[in-house]
């Protein structure tokens, strides 16, 4: 399953870091961050609890870039 989330981040490299952080999160099969349109497209593993996974994704993103936001 794929879902798109709006994000807020100031620099392009930070967006890349968020992408990597999201990819490494458990339950995430693939994640793409589009800096130009400020969107994060997450593909979940089968049977993953989307809400819990996204909370974790947000936490991991905040770890790599303090000044970012993922709108769930």
């Amino acid at each position, binding site marked *: 399953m794929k879902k798109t989330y709006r994000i807020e981040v100031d620099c392009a*490299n930070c967006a*890349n870091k968020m992408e990597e952080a999201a990819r490494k999160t458990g339950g995430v099969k693939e994640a793409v961050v*589009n800096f*130009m*349109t400020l969107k994060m*497209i997450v593909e979940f593993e089968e049977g993953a609890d989307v809400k819990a996974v996204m909370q974790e994704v947000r936490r991991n993103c905040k770890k790599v870039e*303090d000044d970012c936001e993922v709108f769930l």
Partner: protein
Amino acid sequence: MNKKQKKMLVRIIATFLLLIGLSLIGITGYARLVLYMIPYLVIGYDILKKALKGILNRQVFDENFLMAVATVGAIALGDYQEGTAVMLFYQIGELFQSYAVGKSRKNISDLMDIRPDYANVERDGGLEQVDPDEVEVGTLIVVQPGEKIPIDGIVVEGSSALNTSALTGESLPRETAEGEEVISGCINMTGLLKIRTTREFGESTVSKILDLVENSSSKKSRSENFISRFARYYTPAVCYGALALAVLPPLISSLWMGLAPEWGVWVYRALTFLVISCPCALVISIPLSFFAGIGGAGKAGILVKGSNYLEALAQTGWVVFDKTGTMTQGVFEVKGIHHNTIDGEKLLEYAALAECASSHPISKSLQKAYGKPIDRNRVAEIEEIGGNGVTASVDGVAVAAGSGRLMERLGIEPAVCHHPGTVVHVALDGAYAGHILIADLLKPGSKEAIRQLNQAGVKNTVMLTGDRKEAAEQTAEELGIREVHSQLLPADKVSKVEELLERKGPREKLVFVGDGINDAPVLSRADIGIAMGALGSDAAIEAADIVLMDDDPRKIAAAVRIARKCMRIVYENIYFAIGIKGLCLVLGAVGIANMWTAIFADVGVMVLAVLNAIRALFVKKL
């Protein structure tokens, strides 16, 4: 500028003034340090705070940390002015970047400003503005002059001229009148229109296009992936380089060569390394170039579904066209009836009736030429013979209408036609009764399109068609297409494209251009599928990688040129940014480049790369 950016601008100006003021008064010693701390903290407090948080989160190699170390280091070495200036220029660069990105984001979304805000629904004799999402299929909506058509539908009252430029990039208005289909996203220019909606808003053209545009560039190009991988290794590599530069040379010269260690000199050089270590210029300019390129193409009525397609399009080596509807208008007209054994009118009547169940353009043209209403009760036992024609019983007469192949299959000898066009042979009760010649007109821009493609360096142009050999070859010759494959059934086109894919060079891409009707499998099999005349055809929008909003074949060459320009800018930025940074690293290591050069390598390169990236947006003169 938003609030955050304005605040930053104030901080930058304040720091700048403070720095000038401080350089004018001559103070020495600790007072100087204390005074310089004021502008330093004004400009850099948030960076220092973020750097601290980064350390707590074990993110050592982030830009904030590097900037903090470089500037604190410079201040510790006594270069107060330089330390503060580095921070100042770093912030100026960040502000510029965020402003430029925000601006181009807005520019590009303005290009696609086709989202209708409301629909006028007639209720109780008055007009009511409602959310387009709430309008059900079959509702009567009213579009006044100057308003956007919010939902696809059919005009039931009124006539007007429509401005389609937001969708197609075409400035010529399109006339519409009662009974015609209209597409959402067009602007009604002159008259009041009453429209019965045929789709929900979510299914309307405008929603489909917006969806496509908003999700484009999520498919990343190879260049973008290369840059993000590069950035991942670049920063740590430069940081370790800086560490080595600070520690190794002094140790070597003092321990083995018996010279003075000169710690200050080497630490300073290491700090310039840190200033250059930020990969911002690269990381921002590449996606920005693609985004601008996609935006520019959108402005010209060319929708690109991802930056990977733009990248591939720049390497176009082969262009394969479908004939009908792509190079020709797809409007067929009966040009003549030859070798007929019975009256021409009667022959046409049989053919039109036999083909009455088909919606193929050829059948439509027969029905149009026949001109009278079709009485389906006269027709029975209609059988489509896979792309070759039909057999049916009309008024009890066994009619076969179709290509020469159909005749051969039925064991009937067809008469050869020497005129260009599509031929429908007709046999009645197993005997040949003549043929009807149907011609399709070339699009006015087709010839020019092929010429422009050749000029753009496309190696080979190929045309695929279901038409007879003579007609196909004549068209190809007229247009200047080098290779033509005729008499193909829809399924043959896929295998033909596969054959061509094997013949082309490894670094060339094969583009297939079709009108989106019946060629979805071919569109997806080619390296890049381009669908044209997409206004109103969702199948095309879905199957293709690149969608031309109108059906002008010259747009194909325009798309290739836009892609080439965009890729040129991308490579310029990659070579320029990596080149300058590499050069400054070398110069910094040997002590020729100081911190000011390093600031240029970081901020200056980024500003230039961003400005260069925005050039990709301008596609008018291409």
